[in-house]
């Protein structure tokens, strides 16, 4: 087809394609930063409207959350790192929350890149918490470094195993991972309530009336590098979270496993044809995702929680927030990091960090849930956003490269 071929600067195809997935993929690449930023801005705008509708000033409310998250500290140069001061303390707490969110976000993002939707981050996180607590309470005679590493390693493996159950079921029976991970969440929640509850195997030994776990030994605690360790300072787990982002990127882009997972996520049939054992990839993707969540549980338990009660098990929601973090971050390493920072600030800035005189915390807490929900909704609706965006682009640049319509579909 030598002479007949369009030259390099000429778009090779003009036939419109109705292969929607292909177009969506192309548009998502083209959309780049635009869609997630637009999504977040829209969510905050909608949240502001609701605040205004309740008779509050949205500007004051968001300023209150901003300060509550400690973000104002960043603009007070020279930086005063002493966490005696509220700004610095708030920021350290935001970063602490961010660490957890990075990991539960990666727990969703990683399987997503293999075409799997892991709703089970919460369960995997709880399993990690429980195992880390058990290791931390036991082996009390160990020196710090091995004790912490054992706790982290065991909890990470436990998270991987917990998610791996869903992966095995998917690979062997085809059971949908959304269903199985939700069921595994409930098993983890009830399991935690049993283990920490009255008479449970992991209940504390000093107060039989209190339905809560034992407190982990000093040797199992991750050292704090910013703030007071007695006041929930920021521990070295933060760097583990940041490193996890890099590991996530590295696995996906610089290993054969990552290549296989991405191929499977994009087109399982082509992956199979290419010689990839697709079902094994399903298991591996879930297990690695679960490992991130289990690691989150370990860092929280060994970093600042130290013990956990039945009521905490019931109230914990942070694993679910990982879904919003991953979706907003577009399942990329950098995106997940940025989204975790945003949600970390939002979560802490609307709760303990918030000055109750500025804005009613009960309203603020609901605002977080609302913004979270809106982001998930908008990301789910990003087909619509992309459509609007593309319509705009088309108006300016009418010609968009498209693949050939494929006969036989």
């Amino acid at each position, binding site marked *: 087809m*030598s002479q*007949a071929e369009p030259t*390099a600067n*000429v778009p090779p195809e003009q036939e419109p394609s109705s292969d929607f997935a*292909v177009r969506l993929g192309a548009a998502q690449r083209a959309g780049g930063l635009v869609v997630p930023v637009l999504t977040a801005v829209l969510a905050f705008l909608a949240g502001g409207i609701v605040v205004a509708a309740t008779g509050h000033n949205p500007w004051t409310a968001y300023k209150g959350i901003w300060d509550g998250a400690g973000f104002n500290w960043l603009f007070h140069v020279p930086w005063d790192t002493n966490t005696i001061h509220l700004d610095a303390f708030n920021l350290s707490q935001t970063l602490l929350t961010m660490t957890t969110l990075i990991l539960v976000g990666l727990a969703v993002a990683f399987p997503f890149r293999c075409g799997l939707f892991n709703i089970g981050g919460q369960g995997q996180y709880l399993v990690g918490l429980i195992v880390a607590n058990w290791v931390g309470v036991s082996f009390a005679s160990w020196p710090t470094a091995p004790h912490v590493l054992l706790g982290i390693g065991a909890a990470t493996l436990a998270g991987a195993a917990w998610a791996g159950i869903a992966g095995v079921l998917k690979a062997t029976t085809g059971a949908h991972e959304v269903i199985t991970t939700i069921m595994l969440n409930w098993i983890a929640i009830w399991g935690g309530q049993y283990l920490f509850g009255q008479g449970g195997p992991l209940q504390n030994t000093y107060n039989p009336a209190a339905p809560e776990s034992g407190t982990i030994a000093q040797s199992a605690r991750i050292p704090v590098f910013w703030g007071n360790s007695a006041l929930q300072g920021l521990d070295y787990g933060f760097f583990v979270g940041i490193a996890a982002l890099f590991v996530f990127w590295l696995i996906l*882009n610089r290993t054969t496993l990552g*290549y296989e997972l991405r191929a499977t996520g994009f087109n399982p049939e082509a992956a199979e044809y*290419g010689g990839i054992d697709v079902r094994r990839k399903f298991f591996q993707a879930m297990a690695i995702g679960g490992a991130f969540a289990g690691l989150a549980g370990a860092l929280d338990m060994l970093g600042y929680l130290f013990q956990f009660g039945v009521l905490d098990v019931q109230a914990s929601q942070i694993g679910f927030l990982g879904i919003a973090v991953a979706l907003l971050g577009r399942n990329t390493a950098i995106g997940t990091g940025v989204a975790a920072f945003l949600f970390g600030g939002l979560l802490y800035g609307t709760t303990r960090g918030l000055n109750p005189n500025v804005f009613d915390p009960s309203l603020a807490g609901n605002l977080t849930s609302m913004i979270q929900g809106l982001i998930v909704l908008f990301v789910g609706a990003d087909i619509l956003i992309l459509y609007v965006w593309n319509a705009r682009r088309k108006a300016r640049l009418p010609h968009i490269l498209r693949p050939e319509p*494929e006969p036989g579909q």
Partner: protein
Amino acid sequence: MADETGTVLELRGITKRYPGIVANDHVDFDLQRGEVHALLGENGAGKSTLMNILYGLTKPDEGEILVDGKHVSFTSAKDAIETGIGMVHQHFMLIPVMTVAENIVLGVEPVRDAVLLDEGAARRRVEDIARTFKFSVDPGARVDEISVGQQQRVEIMKALYRNADILVLDEPTAVLTPQEAADLFEILRTLRREGISIIFISHKLNEVLEIADRITVLRRGKKIDTVTLEGATEESLARMMVGRDVLLRVDKAPASPTDVALDVKDLHVLDDRELEKVSGVSFTVRTGEIVAIAGVDGNGQSELVEAITGLRRIESGTIEVGGREFEGHLTPRLMIDSGVGHIPEDRHRRGLVLEFNLAENLALHDYNKPPDSKHGWLYPARLVTRAVRLIKDFDIRGGGPLTFASSLSGGNQQKVVVAREVARNPIVLIAAQPTRGLDVGAIEYVHRRLVAERDEGHAILLVSLELDEVLSLADRILVMYEGRIVGEHGAGAGEEEIGLEMLGGRKEAAA
């Protein structure tokens, strides 16, 4: 309405420019009442742009449109429909869960009691159309339960229901089996007799010669010529389309086969519904020959290929590749590493990861071996090195190693697949419908490449639904019917005999 034979539609000097390309460059086109006028051109020649302008989806930069001698200006498809233009897209726009009649009347439903859909009237009017134009479609059937060919008829009836007297069909046979295509042509002839004027967009020469009264050829946005059917040949049309002489017949020396490379013995394979689709197939392919499997779609060819490539479980029988015997549960990885190359029948479904770039696609079988990777670590730069070489060797155009596969043209996408499979130097190369959906230039390329691979000493198993392709490429022809090999022929076999066998005719009948 125009008179009996007049010009119903005229496009004058249509020009449409996009950044970097003139999609239509002063194109003139006219359509007579009751004719089939084919619009012929390669992918990207500007056929679809011209039709989108006619259908009101795109505004031309220059030029005018006349319907029945009157100037018209469309701002949307609605305007075009009201003027009597109907378009049947390649991908149908039907609602699967609704009935044929409901789909046809959708948007202009007959109404009773002011608000309710008059189902009886809808059904009657659909039946009227079916009777007038001799469509065999059940108006009460759900769209997702009828065949693709019938769905296409529903699309045509939708246009007729809206009183279209100009019908535009965009590559209508691309989704059809040969039998369905023959039925479609019968329908088009009926429509033509009833005074409907038809624009038939295609890049398949034989179809155009079969159905069209006149043929307009576009190349790179320019109208090359409009010719009548008399005197037009495949060769002359191909030359106009591509701009040079195209070898429609494959030029090849007689084969000189040597050792047996692929030996299939008494193979039995089930399909997804656990029905036996391959029932005791045995054959051999030798190094240096092209063996073609001819047959109508769905007679077990796909399952046979999937079995040999490890994508489908073998119930019983054996497969020998280069002297190594396999049976039972094979995997794609095992067969890839044993020297089986595979150009799959659907490059979008299996052959390519469209969201991967070319370097990643070209590495699809070898990403897990040095130099691409070592101890599980992948070296993307080395993938690119290979891609640079293959893109040059196989003349892949439209992008570099980091271009996404989805943004290449179909012909170039297929070159990526061919490059990957051929470059691995397989003992046996299985080419399943390797030219499906490609235009003449790309078909010529793939054919030449397969013959070249044969001459370099590879064994090639070609599976094709196109009898022309089988006859022009094969050194030996096997005919497959209902899961069995029902005939074997040398290179010079007669088309009719093979055609009869493909439809299940016994040998006695032909002899």
